[in-house]
């Protein structure tokens, strides 16, 4: 057990190190002075330049530079944005929660819809229900997210006018920035018209969340269905029937757990796709998340922002993936100790 947590931890640290190396290297790869790319400051005054060069140890070897880069990263000193001139650390941690919020709701919704439907399809393998669900999931899976998002805007915002076109909440409301999760922030705040703000925020959220949910649901459905189809003919399921248990009892006691255990790590892997889709959707709905922020940075050739943004997003994805995988393996009693440690 300990060894295998250690292995996950090693993998995590190494991956993060590689990501840091890459982001550091980016400062050299981007056009312009590496020091400017690292700090994000236009250093016209030679004295300032000297001070910064000193801080980043630019005259020492590359390894020393990298080490000090790591230390600064750790301290939260990520440099400044070219375009806004604000500290990147703060900018990123202002916009990241919005993305996480979007993805979380989408993920929860798609698990809520996808898993039961997957079970339904798997239990009716090769029958009409199964085929219909499978066909629907193929459609959902292969629809490009940006196209779906545009289509939804066209239909629900412009034609029917049910939902607002873009943004996170109407400008009428002034929500304090606390956790970064807008629903939570509204809940915690002592605004005068909390209820109205809540409804407004949810209305803004419906379309972006749904656009991501559809694709993710399709994936979850297919994974669940596959797992159920694989578990159903297993000998222990047949043996449970032979013990005189009813279909319900067999499914609840023996099928659900065995089907879900192997797909938990697979679901973790989907967080990459989920975040990517969330970032695309953000751009279309002008959702103030990290995806939107990064795209803006790329448009404006804001090199320090690109560097730090990439690092933040990839760290988030790697942390999620490894953590959920670890968790899934820890709670899974079906694997041998040795087999469980494999990644």
């Amino acid at each position, binding site marked *: 057990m300990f060894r295998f947590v250690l292995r996950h931890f090693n993998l995590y640290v190494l991956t993060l190190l590689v990501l840091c190396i890459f982001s550091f290297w980016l400062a050299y790869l981007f056009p312009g002075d590496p020091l400017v790319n690292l700090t994000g400051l236009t250093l016209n005054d030679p004295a300032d330049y000297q001070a910064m060069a000193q801080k980043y140890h630019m005259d020492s070897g590359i390894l020393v530079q990298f080490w000090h880069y790591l230390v600064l990263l750790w301290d939260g000193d990520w440099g400044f944005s070219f375009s806004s001139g604000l500290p990147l650390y703060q900018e990123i941690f202002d916009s990241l929660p919005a993305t996480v919020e979007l993805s979380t709701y989408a993920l929860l919704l798609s698990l809520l819809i996808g898993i039961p439907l997957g079970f339904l399809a798997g239990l009716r393998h090769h029958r009409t229900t199964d085929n219909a669900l499978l066909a629907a999931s193929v459609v959902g899976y292969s629809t490009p997210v940006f196209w779906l998002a545009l289509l939804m805007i066209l239909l629900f915002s412009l034609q029917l006018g049910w939902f607002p076109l873009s943004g996170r909440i109407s400008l009428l409301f002034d929500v304090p920035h606390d956790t970064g999760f807008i629903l939570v922030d509204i809940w915690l705040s002592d605004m005068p018209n909390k209820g109205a703000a809540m409804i407004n925020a949810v209305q803004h959220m419906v379309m972006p969340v749904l656009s991501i949910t559809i694709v993710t649901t399709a994936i979850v459905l297919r994974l669940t269905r596959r797992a159920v189809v694989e578990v159903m*003919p*297993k*000998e*222990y399921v*047949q*043996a*449970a*029937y*032979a*013990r*005189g*248990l*009813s279909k319900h009892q067999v499914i609840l*006691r*023996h099928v659900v*757990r*065995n089907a879900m*255990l192997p797909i938990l790590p697979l679901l973790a892997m989907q967080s990459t796709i989920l975040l990517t889709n969330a970032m695309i959707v953000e751009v279309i709905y002008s959702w103030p998340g990290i995806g939107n922020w990064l795209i803006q940075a790329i448009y404006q050739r804001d090199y320090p922002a690109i560097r730090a943004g990439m690092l933040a997003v990839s760290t988030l994805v790697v942390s999620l993936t490894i953590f959920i995988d670890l968790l899934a393996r820890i709670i*899974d*009693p*079906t*694997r*041998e100790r040795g087999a469980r440690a494999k990644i």
Partner: protein
Amino acid sequence: MPLLDIKNLTLEIESTQGWIKALDKVSLQLEGGEVRALVGESGSGKSLIVKSIVGAIPEHWRITADRMSWKGQDLISMSSDARRRIMREDIAVIFQNPVNSLDPSASLGEQLMESIPDHLLDKGWFWQRAAQRKQIAVKLLHKVGIKEHSKYLQAYPSALPDDICQKFMIASALAASPKLLIADDPTRGMEVTTKVQILKLLTRLNKIRGLSILFVSHDLLAISNMANTMTVLYCGQTVESGKMHQLRRRPLHPYTHALMESAPSFRKDLPPKSPLATLDGTIPTLQHLPIGCRLGPRCPRAQRECVKVPEERRIHNHFYSCHFPLHRSLK
């Protein structure tokens, strides 16, 4: 009325070459209190018979029978609820591969307690019932020779050796005090002392409680001590069945004869270092079944008539399916 009565059970399974009769007109009867041995080479379809009886075969396989009944009630046409009740209360089964028949994600205790039917519990409140369930489970474990029950009740199947899992399977089969126990190779891979212990337990249950047993095994010696009657299977066909001592003393079917000859411990008059009598060749695979009598290509007594499937014939309670049985001399 026999407890279990199977007449001409045919099971067709789908393969790449179309439908194959994996079981072909198998007949099997079991009276109350009887121990019947079911023997045959590996791949002869013993486990398929077991699975057909308990209904653990894939839905799309075709199963037909002239008769397949439990105490006169037809198992094939009965509702799944009624069949489940019979499986819950009257018939228990130990599948061949204990590790595969245990849910890897549930603890052994959980699975054992699940096999204890509600009607065995007499306490009122649910926590009392849970405690009683546990008590019964522990008692069952002691019965099959597991002493350190607390160590194993919490454990998951993957963490335990095969023979413990096997004993758990036996314990959970006995949990409902069934009338019929179907045991598919229950002692395989066990060491001798445990094997003797299990066989003794089964014999005792048969003697004291009148438990009927359908005992599938390769171990002819164990079977001959335990079983009253025997059914011999070859390639999915029942070739001979009858009283144990009859089949031992005077087998009528060439296959049974060969089977008995091949077990050294069965022949008291075997001179030392004499070669074992065996049939030529090996059991054909399901994809290459010969027509007619399936033993044909390997049978020393085969004649032209053998391309037709032999009818089942009987002498009193002794059934055999052969055109040229041993008691009739060849022309």
